[in-house]
C-alpha cells in the first residue's frame, strides 16, 4: 500500500529572480488519491509542470516508480504519468473515439510502414486499440457519441473525454488539473465517482483543485502549497484544521476566482515552453479570437471553441 509511485525530491523552480517552487518534497503512493491545493499564485501549476516534464526543475528530481523522469512531456507520458489540462485541451476537430485513440499512442507502436502496408499485425493492433478505447468510452459513458466531434460535446463530457484520453495511455499515475472547474454540483459529484473508479483500477491520482469540498471528500491525503513552499501535508482533517492554511486562504481573494497562479503567469515570458495551464485564461466575455494555442501556431483550425467553453465554465 505504501509503495511510492511518484517522488519529487527537493524540487525548486526558478524563473530568473523569481522562485516559483522552493524545495518541495512530495510523494504519491500507489492506490492513493492525493490533492494539491493552494491559493492563487502558490506555484501549483508550475509544480505540476515540473512533474509532467514541461519544465525542467532548476534543482531536485522527479522520479516515477524509482526512475528519474526525463524532462520531456512525451517521455513522461510514456513512462506512465498521464495528465489532463486545466482548460480543456481536446483535439477539437477529431472524433471522440479518435481522441482516445491518440491517447493510446504510447502503448502502440505501429509506424508509418506498417500503416502503409496494412499487414495483419497492423489490423490487429488497430482493432485492439479501438476495443480498448471503446472500453474507456463505456467507462466514462460516452460510447454512444464515439463519432461526434470533440468540439461538439457539452462541457462536462469534454472533461470526461479528456480523462478517458489520459487513461488510454495506461498510466500508473493520473494527474488531474482542476477537473471540476466550471462544473455544477451534480457534475462535480459524478467526477468524484469517476475518480474513485479510476483509483479502484489501481491508478494513483493526483488532483489540483480549488474546490475544497471536492478535495476533502476525495483525497486520502492533501498537500498545501503556499508561495512555492509546501506548507502542510496530511489527511483532510489535518489540513482542514491547520490554522496556517486558513490564514493563507483568507489572505487571498475569493477561491472561485478563475485565474490562479498570477505569480507564475508573470514569469511566463521567461520560459521557453508555452504552457497555458499556468497563465490566466481569457475572461469569459472575450471571443475566441486571440486564443492561440501556444507553440503550434501553424495549425489551420484554431481550437478556439474549447477554450471558450472552458472560460465560460470558469465563472459559475
Amino acid at each position: 500500500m505504501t509503495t511510492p509511485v511518484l517522488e519529487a525530491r527537493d524540487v525548486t523552480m526558478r524563473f530568473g529572480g523569481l522562485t516559483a517552487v522552493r524545495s518541495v518534497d512530495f510523494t504519491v503512493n500507489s492506490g492513493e488519491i492525493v490533492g494539491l491545493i493552494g491559493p492563487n499564485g502558490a506555484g501549483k501549476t508550475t509544480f505540476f509542470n515540473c512533474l509532467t516534464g514541461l519544465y525542467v526543475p532548476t534543482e531536485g528530481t522527479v522520479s516515477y516508480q524509482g526512475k528519474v523522469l526525463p524532462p520531456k512531456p512525451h517521455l513522461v507520458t510514456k513512462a506512465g504519468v498521464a495528465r489532463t489540462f486545466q482548460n480543456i485541451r481536446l483535439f477539437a476537430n477529431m472524433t471522440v473515439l479518435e481522441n482516445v485513440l491518440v491517447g493510446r499512442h504510447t502503448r502502440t507502436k505501429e509506424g508509418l510502414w506498417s500503416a502503409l502496408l496494412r499487414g495483419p499485425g497492423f489490423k490487429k493492433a488497430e482493432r485492439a486499440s479501438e476495443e480498448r478505447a471503446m472500453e474507456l468510452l463505456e467507462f466514462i459513458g460516452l460510447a454512444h457519441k464515439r463519432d461526434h466531434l470533440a468540439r461538439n460535446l457539452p462541457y462536462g463530457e469534454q472533461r470526461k473525454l479528456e480523462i478517458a484520453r489520459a487513461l488510454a495511455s495506461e498510466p500508473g499515475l493520473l494527474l488531474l488539473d482542476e477537473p471540476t472547474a466550471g462544473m455544477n454540483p451534480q457534475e462535480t459529484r459524478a467526477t468524484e465517482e469517476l475518480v474513485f473508479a479510476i483509483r479502484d483500477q489501481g491508478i494513483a491520482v493526483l488532483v489540483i483543485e480549488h474546490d475544497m469540498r471536492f478535495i476533502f471528500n476525495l483525497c486520502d491525503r492533501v498537500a498545501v502549497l503556499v508561495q512555492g513552499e509546501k506548507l502542510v501535508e496530511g489527511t483532510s482533517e489535518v489540513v482542514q484544521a491547520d490554522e496556517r492554511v486558513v490564514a493563507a486562504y483568507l489572505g487571498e481573494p475569493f477561491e472561485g476566482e478563475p485565474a490562479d497562479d498570477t505569480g507564475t503567469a508573470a514569469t511566463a515570458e521567461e520560459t521557453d515552453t508555452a504552457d497555458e495551464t499556468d497563465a490566466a485564461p481569457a475572461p469569459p466575455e472575450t471571443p475566441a479570437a486571440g486564443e492561440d494555442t501556444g507553440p503550434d501556431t501553424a495549425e489551420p483550425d484554431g481550437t478556439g471553441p474549447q477554450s471558450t467553453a472552458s472560460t465560460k465554465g470558469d465563472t459559475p
Partner: protein
Amino acid sequence: MTETTKTPDTPGTPSADAVIAPDRQGLIPLPAAAARALTLVGGIATVASTFLAWTWTADFPGDLTVYGYPGGLQWLTLVGGALVALFALAGYGVRGLGWLAPAGPTGPAVLTALGALGVTWYTVIAIAVELGGLVNLEPGGYVAAVASLTTVIGAFGLPAGADETRRAKEAFTAYLKAHGRSRLRLAIAGVKFLNAYIGKPDHIAAPQTVPGWLQRLAVTAVTMAGLGIFSYGIDIPSEEGETFIGYLVVIVFAVWALHTAGLLDRFSRLVAAHRGFALAMGFVAAILFPFTQTDDHYANIGVNILIFGTVALGLNIVVGLAGLLDLGYVAFLGVGAYTAALVSGSEFSKFSGVQFPFWAAALTGAAASLVFGVLIGAPTLRLRGDYLAIVTLGFGEIFRIAVNNMDGVSGPDITNGPNGIPSIPDLSFFGFNFGTAHDLGGFTIGRFANYYLLMVLIMAIVVLVYTRAADSRIGRSWIAIREDETAATAMGINGFRVKLIAFALGATLAGLAGTVSAHVTYSVVPNPYQFAGAAPPNSAFLLAAVVLGGMGTVAGPLLGAALLYLLPEKLVFLQDKSLLAFGVALILLMRFRPEGIIANRRRQLEFHETGQLDVPQQTTLTDEPAVTKAGA
C-alpha cells in the same frame, strides 16, 4: 454552400410533402399550379430553343447558327433547361422522379432555373456585345432568353417554406441595414437571400433501402457522368472561353441545386458505404479519360494536372494533416525531377553514361527528396510554425538559385545551370516505348496518354499512401499535433519525430512525381521551381490548390489543382488580365469559402451526421463566423 443554412434551432423539414404543403407560397405570388406549369413549360421551351439558331454568323464561338441541333453554349443551356424541367416534374410528383429531390424540389428548381438563365443570358449578351449589337441575334436567341426568364419567374413562384421566405427576406434586409448599400453589397445580400430561400433542411429523409448492386450501379453512373462532364470541360477549345464560362455557370448552379435537393448528401452516404468501390471507380474513370480523347493535347493537360495534383496531395500531408506551413515545397518536386534527369541517360546530364531503369530512377528521385526533406526538416521542425514557413521559403529559393548556378562556371558542375538538362529520353518499360503512340483496342494512345496512365498509377500510390497514413496511429498523431501540440505531447507523442515523418513523407511523394515530370517535359530547368509565379507548379500555387480544394481531404487538392491549372488555360480571352483575374479570384474564394471547396470529413461530420441539438451555442459560433458569412 453546406454550412450556411445550419442554425441549431431550425425545425427539420423532413419530407418533400411538407415543403409542397398548400399554405406555403413562393416569393412571387403565383398559384402553385400555375408556377409549376410555368417552370415546366419554361424549362421545356428553353430546351427547345437550343435547337434554333441564335445568331447568324459562325464568328461567335461554337457555331450557334444551326437549326436542328444545338452547338457550343446551346448545349449548356439545354442541360440547364432539362434540369429545371426534371425538377419541375419532380414537383408534380411524377412517379419515379421523387428520388431526384429528397429535400424538396423548390430549391433545386430555383437554382437550376437561375443557372439556365445565367448561361442563356450570358450567351445572348455575349453575342450582342462581341458581334456588336442585338441585331446579331436570330429569333432563337430571343426565344431562349424569354424562356429562361419565364422559368425563373415560375421557379420563384413555386411554393417555398414560409419560414425560408421570411428568413431570406430578413437576411437580405439585415445585411443591407448592417452594411449599407453598394453594388457589391447588394450582390452579397442577394446571395444571402438566395441561400436562405432555397435553404436545405438539416434532416433529409433516409433513402429507401435499395439493393447493393443498385447502389454500386449508382456510384458507377455518377462517376461516369463525372468523367463525361470533366472531359467535356477539358475539351472546350481555349479560344472558346465563353463556352467555358457558361460551363462553369451551369456546373456551379447544378451542383448547388443537387446539394439543396439533398442528392449530394445521399451520394456521399453511398460513397461512404462503398468506399473501396467508389475509389476504384474513380480510378477507372481516370484511366478511361484518355480513351475519351482524340487529341493528345488533352492527355498532356491531363498529365500536367495529375503531376500538379499529386504534388498538392503530398503537400496536403504536410499542411493539411500535420499543420506545417511549407512555402518551399516545389523544391522537392525539383529535387526529384533533377535526380531523374541526372540518371536518365540524357547526354546533357553530368552522368550522361548512367541510365537507370525508370523504377530505379523513381526510387532514387524519391530517396533524394527524402534526404533533402530530412536535412531541411531536422533542424527547423523544432522551430515555431511561422519560422518554419520562412525557412522553407528560404530553402525553396536556395534550391532554385543553387541549381541555376551549378554549371561549373559559378558553382560546382552538376545541374548544367540555367540551360537545365534537356533531351531526357522517353521511358521504356519492357519494350513499351512511352514516346510513341500505341493502338489499344482501336483507340490510339499517344505519348502524353502513356505518361498520363503512368501518372494515374503514381497518383494511385500517393492516394493510397495518403489515406492509409491518415487513417492510422501516425495520421492521428499528425492531426493531434495540428490541433494542439502541447496536448499532443502530453499524450506521449514525440512532436518533432512525428512532424519530421510528415515532412519527409511529403517530400518523398513530391520527388516521386518529379521523376515523371522530368520525362514528360523532356527537360528540367531551374525556372519553374520558384515560390510564386504565373503558372503551376510553384509553391504558392501548390498551397493554393490545397487550401482552395480543401485541406485534409483527398479530393480537395486534386480538384483544386485541376481548377488552378484549367482556369488560366481556358480563360485565355482574358489575355494579359488573366493573372489579375486569378489573384482576385483567390481573394474572393478565401473571403467566401475559406475552408475550401470540399469540406473536410470532420466538418462534414459536424454538419451532417451529428445533428445534436445540445451543442453549446458558442462552440458553433466562435469557430465559424467566417463560414456563416460564406455565401456561394
